[in-house]
C-alpha cells in the first residue's frame, strides 16, 4: 500500500478514461517512432550503399531512376549503354575506379549482377565461404540471398529474366554457386554477383529458344555488347564538376551523382514525413489535452478523497505527487505501448515489403526513441500540473463538510 498503489487503483477504477488516454498517447508515439525508425533506416541504407560511389553513368533518362536502379537496386534501369563507350570512359585519367554493371535477371527477386572484380574492391567485399566468381556462370551470393534461398556452395540454379518475378526462366544455362559473402550491411547482401560474360551468355541462349520478337532484340543487344551502367570513383574531388559535364555533353550517356539524387529523393519523401510528423504531434497534443481534461474533471470528485488523505496526515506535496504520478503513469504506459506498437508495425511492414533491397525492420532501436519517452513524460507532467495544483487550493475542512 503506497502512493503508487493508490494511483494505480484509481486508474483501474476509471478504466475507460485511462484506456482512452493510453491509446491516444500510444498512437502518437507509435507514429513518431515508425517515422523515426523508417527514416533513419532508409537514410542509413542510402548512405551506406552510395558510400564510395561518386558518379553513375548510364543510359539517358531519369537520373533518379539511374541511381535507384544501379546503386540501390530498386527501380528498373534506364536502358543500356554501349560497352565500348563505357570502357572508353573507364580509361579516363580522372577515374580512379570504374565498375561496369550488367543487370537483367533475377533469382527469386534477388538481382543477378554481372560485373568485374572492381565491384568487390568498391564495396570492400570479403568471402565467408568458398571463393569469388571466376568463370562464366559462376556466382557469389550475398549473405541475405544465401540465407533466404538456402543455396549452398556447389548448388546450381536458373536465373529468371527481368528484375522481379520468376516468369521467364533461362532454362538453358544454370548458375553455379562458388562462394558466399560475409554480411556487409549494405545492398550487396541482397545481390547475386557474377561476371558480365555470364549475363551475355544467358541472353545468347535466348536466341535458340524461339521468342522471335524478344530474341531479335536481345541478339542486337549482345552483338553491340551493351552494359547497364558504370559506377565511378574519382581520383580527386576536383572532377565533381568537370567529369559529369563531359559525360553529359560529349557522349550519348548521362551521369548522375548518388549524393545529389538521394538528397533530391529525400526532399521528395520529406514532405510526407513532415506531414505525418505534424499529425503525430497533433495527436500527442490531443492526448495531453485529454489527460488534462480527465484529471481536471476527476478532481471535482477526488477533492473529497484528497481532503480525506490530508486529514489522515498526508502533506500537500505528497498528494501533489499522487496526482502528478497518475498523469505521468498514463503517459509512460502509453509511450512504452506506442514504442512497442511502432516497432511491431515496422517489423510487420518489413515482412510484407516486396523489395528485399530496402527492407525495414522493427528490431532495432535508435537513440531518438529515448527522446520520445522523455516527451511522453513531459506531456504527462504538463497535463497533470494544473489539476495537481488544485491540491494547494482545496480547503479540506470546507470540502468535507459539504455533501458529495
Amino acid at each position, binding site marked *: *500500500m503506497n502512493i503508487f498503489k493508490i494511483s494505480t*487503483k484509481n486508474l483501474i477504477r476509471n478504466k475507460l478514461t485511462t484506456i482512452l488516454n493510453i491509446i491516444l498517447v500510444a498512437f502518437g508515439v507509435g507514429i513518431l517512432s515508425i517515422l523515426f525508425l523508417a527514416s533513419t533506416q532508409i537514410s542509413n541504407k542510402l548512405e551506406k550503399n552510395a558510400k564510395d560511389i561518386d558518379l553513375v553513368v548510364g543510359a539517358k533518362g531519369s537520373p533518379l531512376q539511374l541511381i535507384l536502379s544501379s546503386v540501390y537496386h530498386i527501380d528498373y534501369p534506364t536502358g543500356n549503354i554501349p560497352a565500348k563507350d563505357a570502357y572508353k570512359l573507364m580509361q579516363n585519367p580522372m577515374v580512379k575506379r570504374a565498375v561496369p554493371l550488367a543487370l537483367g535477371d533475377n533469382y527469386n527477386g534477388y538481382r543477378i549482377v554481372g560485373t568485374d572484380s572492381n565491384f568487390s574492391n568498391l564495396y570492400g567485399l570479403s568471402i565467408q565461404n568458398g571463393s569469388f566468381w571466376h568463370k562464366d556462370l559462376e556466382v557469389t551470393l550475398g549473405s541475405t540471398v544465401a540465407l533466404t534461398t538456402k543455396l549452398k556452395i556447389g548448388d546450381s540454379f536458373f536465373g529468371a529474366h527481368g528484375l522481379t518475378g520468376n516468369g521467364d526462366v533461362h532454362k538453358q544455362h544454370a548458375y553455379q554457386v562458388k562462394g558466399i559473402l560475409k554480411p556487409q550491411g549494405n545492398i550487396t547482401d541482397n545481390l547475386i554477383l557474377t561476371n558480365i560474360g555470364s549475363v551475355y551468355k544467358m541472353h545468347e541462349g535466348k536466341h535458340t529458344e524461339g521468342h522471335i520478337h524478344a530474341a531479335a532484340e536481345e541478339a542486337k543487344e549482345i552483338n553491340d555488347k551493351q552494359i547497364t551502367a558504370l559506377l565511378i570513383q574519382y581520383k580527386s574531388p576536383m572532377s565533381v564538376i568537370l567529369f559529369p559535364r563531359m559525360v553529359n555533353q560529349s557522349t550519348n550517356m548521362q551521369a548522375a551523382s548518388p549524393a545529389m539524387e538521394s538528397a533530391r529523393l529525400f526532399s521528395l519523401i520529406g514532405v510526407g514525413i513532415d506531414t505525418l510528423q505534424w499529425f503525430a504531434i497533433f495527436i500527442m497534443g490531443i492526448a495531453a489535452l485529454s489527460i488534462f481534461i480527465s484529471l481536471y474533471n476527476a478532481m471535482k470528485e477526488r477533492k473529497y478523497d484528497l481532503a480525506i*488523505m490530508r486529514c489522515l*496526515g*498526508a502533506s500537500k506535496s505528497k498528494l501533489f505527487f499522487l496526482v502528478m504520478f497518475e498523469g505521468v503513469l498514463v503517459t509512460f504506459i502509453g509511450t512504452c505501448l506506442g514504442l512497442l506498437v511502432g516497432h511491431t508495425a515496422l517489423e510487420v511492414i518489413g515482412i510484407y515489403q516486396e523489395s528485399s533491397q530496402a527492407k525495414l525492420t522493427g528490431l532495432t532501436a535508435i537513440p531518438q526513441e529515448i527522446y520520445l519517452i522523455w516527451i511522453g513524460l513531459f506531456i504527462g507532467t504538463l497535463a497533470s500540473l494544473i489539476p495537481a495544483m488544485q491540491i494547494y487550493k482545496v480547503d479540506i*475542512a470546507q470540502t468535507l463538510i459539504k455533501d458529495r
Partner: protein
Amino acid sequence: MIKISSLAHVYDKGRNLKFPCWEIADMEQWLLLGASGSGKSTLLNIISGLLKPSQGEVLINGTDLYTLSAKERDRFRGRHIGIIFQRPHLIRSLDVLDNLELAAVMAGLPIDHERNLSLLADLGIAELAKNYPDELSQGQLQRVSVARALVNKPDLLIADEPTSSLDDENANQVIQMLTTQAKDNGAALIIATHDGRVRDHITKTYLL
C-alpha cells in the same frame, strides 16, 4: 491531554469567534454543544490542525499544534488525531482494508495488518474487509470510518455530527460504538453535535 487557551478566529468575511479555555484529560469523553453557526466546526478544525486560528494556542500532549510547520502538522494529525466525519468519506477506489491501510501509510506509520483486522472484528464488519465502499450500507460505512480513525491508535478521537443523519436506533449504536471504542483504544473523545440524543451518554459538555 489537550488544552486550548485564549483561542479566537476571525474569518475573512468578518465573522469573529472566541472560544473559552478547555482542558481535556487523557481518555476523557466530551460533548461539544452549540447551535449551528456557533463555531463548532471551526473549533473542531482548529483542534484537528486543519485551520490556523488567528490567535491562541492548541496544546496536544505538550505539542503546540500551530508552532509546527504545515507538513509536520499534517503528520501529527495523522498520528495523534482520529477524525470521524458526518459522512463516512471513504476512498472509493480502495477496498475496506486498503482504506484502513491508507490511514497508516498517509501518517507515515507501518501497516499493522493484525490490528486492522481486529478493529474490523470489534466493529462487527470483519467479513467486509475485501468489499468496496459502494457495496456497503450507510451504517457499515460509518463503522469503517470509525475503524479508520482508530487505525493509528490516536490520543484524541473527534466526531463531527456523527448521528445527524441516523435514526434513533442507529444513532444509539454509533454513540455506543464511539464511547466504547475510544475507551478500549485509550483515546480521548470529542463529539460535536446539536443532537439531544447524544447527551444521555456523555456527561461532560463544552458549550459554545
